[in-house]
């Protein structure tokens, strides 16, 4: 087996759930996504950081919902019919993230994913795992663990 073939065969295909935020397409690994919900009643939690929208009742479990726009430093936007909450599982924690809309599941080969362009202090770049172009559109792939990283949690705890 030639080396080139080897690489080709090992080129893992990862599935991503894509969603939009402020006109951009983002993707998170499908394996982390538990379900996608329409927006239900979100109960605010006084004293929580501003990117925490509140908590929702997910079939008897209390799940925290984060405002992804705020997390990425994007301007606030009204909740519309297309707005969804993506319930994700990350390191045994279940959280919901509020997004403008959820589009589809795409398959990306590992080889087409480029490491994120280092654009410096942009708030959102901290949570980006990489970018990929599919059908001429740029997909920004989000690293969920970084989005909910430990330091952020401890920051929450300090407040």
């Amino acid at each position, binding site marked *: 087996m030639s080396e080139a073939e080897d690489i080709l065969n090992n080129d893992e295909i990862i599935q991503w759930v894509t969603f939009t935020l402020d006109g951009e397409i983002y993707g998170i690994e499908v394996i982390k996504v538990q379900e996608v919900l329409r927006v239900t009643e979100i109960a*605010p939690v*006084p004293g*929580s950081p501003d990117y925490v929208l509140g*908590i929702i009742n997910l079939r008897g479990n209390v799940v925290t919902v984060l405002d992804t726009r705020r997390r990425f430093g994007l301007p606030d936007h009204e909740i519309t019919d297309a707005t969804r909450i993506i319930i994700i599982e990350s390191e045994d924690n279940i959280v919901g993230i509020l997004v403008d809309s959820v589009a589809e599941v795409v398959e990306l080969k590992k080889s087409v994913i480029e490491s994120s362009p280092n654009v410096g202090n942009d708030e959102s770049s901290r949570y980006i795992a990489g970018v990929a172009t599919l059908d001429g559109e740029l997909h920004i792939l989000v690293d969920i663990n970084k989005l909910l990283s430990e330091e952020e949690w401890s920051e*929450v705890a300090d407040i």
Partner: protein
Amino acid sequence: MSATLDTEDEILQDFLVEAGEILELLGEQLVDLEKTPEDMDLLNAIFRGFHTVKGGAGFLSLEAMVEICHRAEDVFNILRNGEMTLTPSMMDHFLKVLDILHEQFDQINNGEMPADADADLLAVLDAMTRGETPEAAPEAAVQEPAADDQADAEFEQMIAGMDEAQADADTPAAGSDVITEEEFDNLLDELHGKGKGPTSETDKATAEPKSDEISEDEFDALLDELHGKGKGPTAKSAKAEDEKKSDEINEEEFDALLDQLHGKGKGPTAGKSTPSKAEAVSAAQPEKPAESEPAKVSEQKPAPKKAAAKKADAGAAGKQPVKTVDTTVRVDTKRLDDIMNMVGELVLVRNRLDNLEASLGNEDISKAVSNLDVVTSDLQAAVMKTRMQPVKKVFGRFPRVVRDLARSLNKEIELVMVGEDTDLDKNLVEELADPLIHLVRNSVDHGIEVPDDREKAGKPRTGTITLSASQEGDHIQLTIVDDGGGMDPDSLRKIAVEKGVLDQESAARLEDRECYALIFAPGFSTKKEISDVSGRGVGMDVVKTRIAKLNGTIDIDSIKDTGTTITIKLPLTLAIMPTLMVGVGERMYALPLTSVSEIFQLEENTTNIVDGQLVVMVRNRAMPLFYLNEWLVTDPSERDNSGEQQVVVTHVANQRVGFVVNAVVGQEEVVIKPLGAVLRGLPGFAGATITGDGCIALILDVPSLMKAHGKG
């Protein structure tokens, strides 16, 4: 031997659970024994305890544990035979033995081989077995050898019989028949009963659940052991081991054995077999040619009456425990937690249905809902019961704690325990252990005076600490009462000022009862010197926090020179919490009912501002008042202080605080849902819950809410 390696872990686990319980029990029993050194039942129980542990340890080749148990067992054997009497110094050694066993036990738990016990201690135990009280020895010594000799001779015969039988059996595995556990027990009882009858029975009860069948090899080993040691008691360990291993005994061999026993002509000994056993043996045989069966059965028949008589002698305790053991199942706590959680969900659904039903007003639905209501309540109670454990589990260690401490402080203290059977949620039982130990140690160290002082004060030399538990409605009350020196409110005030906890003025204004509560303040210690027991001024603060964490309250009352009473109130369970639902702004919040003491309507002219703090006069006393919406409603424009407002009076750290809320909705039992990782540690909230109408309500945690927002 068929004890295969793959089951080893399981066996070890079983041993750990079983031995753990026994060790715990031994601790209690030993301390009891010190009070009643003559108690035969207790001596026997302790002897059996050591014995069972030894048996299990021996089977698992935990030599270090066997060594020490074996010696302890020997000493207790002598004690219970009345050849020696217990002295306090011996007791110290026994307790040391127990400590070492606990250590070894922990090592095993961590997957290490237990370390060898201190050689000195073993030597001391050996010395004890040689007998420090010779005057009592001769008498018993005469009896024992006789019994032993007899047993020896008999065992020899049996083994001879076994050997023959073995020679005959060319295909033992294929031809082997199964001997039931009961038969084997009976057999052992006979053998054993010869030497030391009574002790054999109860032990067996513990070993039996695992027992099944016995292999020839093991049986041989057992006989060897019986034989080698020539003493009854050791048979039990062997039995415990062997039964666990579960194997089979060859039918012919067993026959031969029975014949041997019987053939010896000593009716009484062989005859322990009851008719049922004879039946069982014959029932077990059909697959095999029944050559010897009739003879055997008839041989056995003459005995039953004596057997019955003997059994009565030996104490019928043996069989009953077996039954109870059979009806229990060990369940992983995790599974119980899951069930509890699901029941919690069900309670929520019921609450929701209740709400719906009220709005529908349909009679049929009402009936169904009220049925569901009853069933759910029952289910909830039943599930809660499965999680309950007697408070004995915590209390059990106190006799030892008190004894050790009293001895080291040269005090004479009697510990009285009341209501040990009161049931508590398992989690509570575990969480309570540390705070309670601290309180009891405090009572011993600070509370009870030294005997001479007590005498001078006209009290009996021996101080009494009463530990009691009782269920009062939906909560559990624990009290620790000592008849010691009590506390002096004035000196407490003085210390508070010295330590900078309070200033002179506010100290002087404190009521006596409030003074006692001072000891819960961090950094407060009345003890002049710090001992390794207490006096660092950390403990009581921690105790208080821990109890508060369990949604409990702690109260202290004292009368100088007569004693101190500490009262702890706890909810029955942690999973479901009674709360008061209040409306603040647009949202509902749940206040733990344990911290709510009263509700009244806020009238404008009753509030004042004192030193920058809003207060309200309640029965001529000022109480700080806080508007909850200032803390819980982020947008100031949404704070609505118009209309009727209620004040919910809560108590935080012995202080009463009023919270102004927009509405008091009512009482609701809620299931606490933890907030997710992102919000964990957020002050002010104990969690969230889903209300009857499917909404989410945050559960307020009054102490941390006060810490985060209030000055108090």
